[in-house]
């Protein structure tokens, strides 16, 4: 049985999840910092 698709699939899912949640979290953090700064300096 060719194991490559199963191994690549597992690593692929993991990397996509880690990258995805990191990007979402980073964007949310940056937006929160920007909005707070804008409101504080108003």
């Amino acid at each position, binding site marked *: *049985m060719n*194991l490559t698709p199963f*191994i690549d699939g*597992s*690593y692929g899912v*993991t990397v996509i999840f880690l990258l995805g949640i990191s990007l979402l979290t980073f964007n*949310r*953090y940056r937006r*929160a910092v920007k909005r707070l700064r804008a*409101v504080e300096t108003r």
Partner: protein
Amino acid sequence: MNEDVLITGRIGKTGTWFHRYANPGRFLRLVRPALPWLTAFSILITVTGIVWGYAFAPADWQQGAAARIMYVHVPAAWVAMAGYAALAACSFFSIVWRHPLADLAAEEIGPVGAGFTAVCLVSGSLWGKPMWGAYWVWDARLTSVLVLFFLYLGHIALIRAFDNPAHGHRAAAILALVGAINLPIIVFSVQWWNTLHQGNTISITGGSKIYITMLYPLIIASLGFYLSFITLVCARICSAIMERRTRGLLLAAAERAS
């Protein structure tokens, strides 16, 4: 209750530090400067662990190259369970001491923990097909982890289900505490029942059944996953605190204007 509270009406020395750091403002001041470092370390260690496991770790004598799935499956499973334990701890602090930081942490742990549980289930399923001949079996370990995933989803839904956020936090905290019973079931399921899933290979008290060349990448990958989880949750809590502060300032400005 702390005896000092009864005598002086103030929180005494016992646990004072603990209540001190439960303050969202103090948490933000402490954690924000550490976030870039935490991010750098978690990326470095996670990438090292994943690349080591994928490309350099030896193949297993029985399972061959499929054993490489272990370096993402096992760390994801450990983080999923540790995340739920953290969620239950936050829920306990929320119910007992009404710490606002505990509520925020519980709200932010849920989606990250659910994501790691999903990774554990998918990678386990992809490991199961070549080894067992099936993507899924209703085995005690697999089923209890699926229940963990549903508990996470239930918590995510329940905490946001009420118009009054305090009600949502309370209801979700009770669910998280009741659901914590699932954690020992997951850990001991391979001992209590005859399972297709293999037994525990790693033991903190010694007697691990894994060769050192496989253990090192597993430890590095696990450390990376734990650090990633902590970094993500801390960043999300900081974001939530700042969002709340922004809302408060906007509300105060609107009240002043009216």
